[in-house]
């Protein structure tokens, strides 16, 4: 006879297994990294064999891919999109610009560290990262999901105030519905 804990483990395993093998990526080319996404998705690199495919609206998406630098105008939209996604949701920071601003470190219109505004699961460095490294980033994310370590929706919800303060520092005209989870 299996007890509750064990059956919960099995259920978790199955759920995480399917979660990791079915990653719907938000179709949002936020920055110039978007140019390598078609290559990743299409015939030579074919991300679909890992279950990675595009999703048109945030409601259906699991992964938000921040492809490169974020202008402040885009940051507002990214936050909106991120908040509309359903948990568990993951964020991949793509390219050096998401880590430290990259070559736009001194630009007045791009943010420098993405994780200050939304939680990030995996960073892929490089400018631009090759499709291979994009896929390896996804595989890293899959590992984290299988271990149950990747769920940033929860982190975001719990530290919402801190994130909000950072976000509002940049976005002056805050006209968005509240994130009421």
């Amino acid at each position, binding site marked *: 006879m299996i007890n509750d804990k064990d059956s919960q483990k099995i259920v978790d395993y199955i759920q995480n297994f399917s979660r990791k093998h079915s990653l719907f990526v938000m179709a949002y080319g936020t920055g*110039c990294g978007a140019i390598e996404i*078609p*290559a990743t998705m299409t*015939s030579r690199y074919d991300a679909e064999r890992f279950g990675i495919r595009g999703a048109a609206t945030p409601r259906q998406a699991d992964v938000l891919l921040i492809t490169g*630098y974020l202008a402040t105008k885009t940051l507002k*939209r990214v936050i909106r999109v991120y908040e509309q996604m359903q948990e568990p949701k993951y964020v991949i920071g793509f390219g050096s610009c998401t880590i430290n601003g990259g070559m736009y470190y001194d630009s007045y*219109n791009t943010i420098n560290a993405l994780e200050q505004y939304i939680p990030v699961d995996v960073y892929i460095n490089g400018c631009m990262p090759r499709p291979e490294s994009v896929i390896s980033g996804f595989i890293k994310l899959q590992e984290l999901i299988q271990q149950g370590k990747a769920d940033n929706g929860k982190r975001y919800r719990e530290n919402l105030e801190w994130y909000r303060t950072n976000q509002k520092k940049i976005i002056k005209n805050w006209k968005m519905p509240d994130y009421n989870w």
Partner: protein
Amino acid sequence: MIREKETTLYLGPQHPGITGNMMVKLKVQGDTVVSATTHVGYLHRAFEKLIERRNWLNAFTLLCRFCVPEPDPMELTYARAVEELDNREVPERAKYIRVIVMELARLQSFLLWYAGQAGSGGLYTMGQWSVGDRNYILDLFEDLTGGRIYHMYIWPGGVRRDLPEGWTDKVLRTMDYLEGRQKDYNQLMFDNTVFQKRAKGVGIVPKEKAVEWGLVGPPLRGTGIKSDVRIDEPYEIYDKLDFVVPTFEGGDVWARAMVRQEEFRQSISIIRQAIEKMPKGDYYNKVPNPMKWIVPKGQAWAKTESVRGEIGFYVASNGTNKPYRVHAKGAAYSHGVTILEKVLPGQNIADVSFIMNSLGVCPPEIER
């Protein structure tokens, strides 16, 4: 404010149908667009401002990110502007190499356009094929420069390094392959009656207004006007090569697609000719010390033909080791804002993305 009657549709910034990160706000009545407004700035990273803080050569890292699908024409245009200011001669071999790189960039961008045009019309197989084939060209770039997308290969005074051993053979083989593939593409896309039905008579730019509205490049040639920087103001060695600039009448999506399809063939032929005629010799007229290189005072305007049309750089120098002002104008600057706003009203919602792809709207080029 009184509520509008027309429905507002946000095409972008987060939308599978938009060609990048921008927004076209559509007011629709039924499924007809009543008015369209382009909103840009989602990609504004102020690189003109940043270049003013870099020196003349450091600017190249930023420049090639000007329009992502096709970085090389930016490098070339800027390099030519700087060469004009500095009166720097370019070795003959470098000019040939530059032409090959330019045409390869054009080819890969065409392949990306195939994907966009077909994908926005619902033909996904086409996109999978062409973007897959695009990797072969990117491989060539990787061999040549070390980078897949961003190369920073063309410098003022020539190119950064000579061609690797056997690279030209590889290029020729790839050209043969692509020529064969183009037959497949044509069968899948241009011979398809559904595609023809979708494309004909859609998104018409009137011929008499085309130049005045600022239409350039393949879309302009799609209205029947022969205009190409490569023949209007020949740069590098384009005047020594034998190629045709195709034009088609109509000004609709179909005409633009046909122009591009023909230009794809022409680019392959140009590359073959350039490789055949390429002389041996120096590839780089070395600049003194890149960190301290001072470019004389003056202003220069250089333009080249990219896949979307002419790209111009206005460079002003005040005689220091940093550019004083660099202003870039891409084709999408007029295509994506004025012309799009003029063409879209009256069109079907289903055609909006189709037309945008056909006009070659590239958001980073608009806002920089």
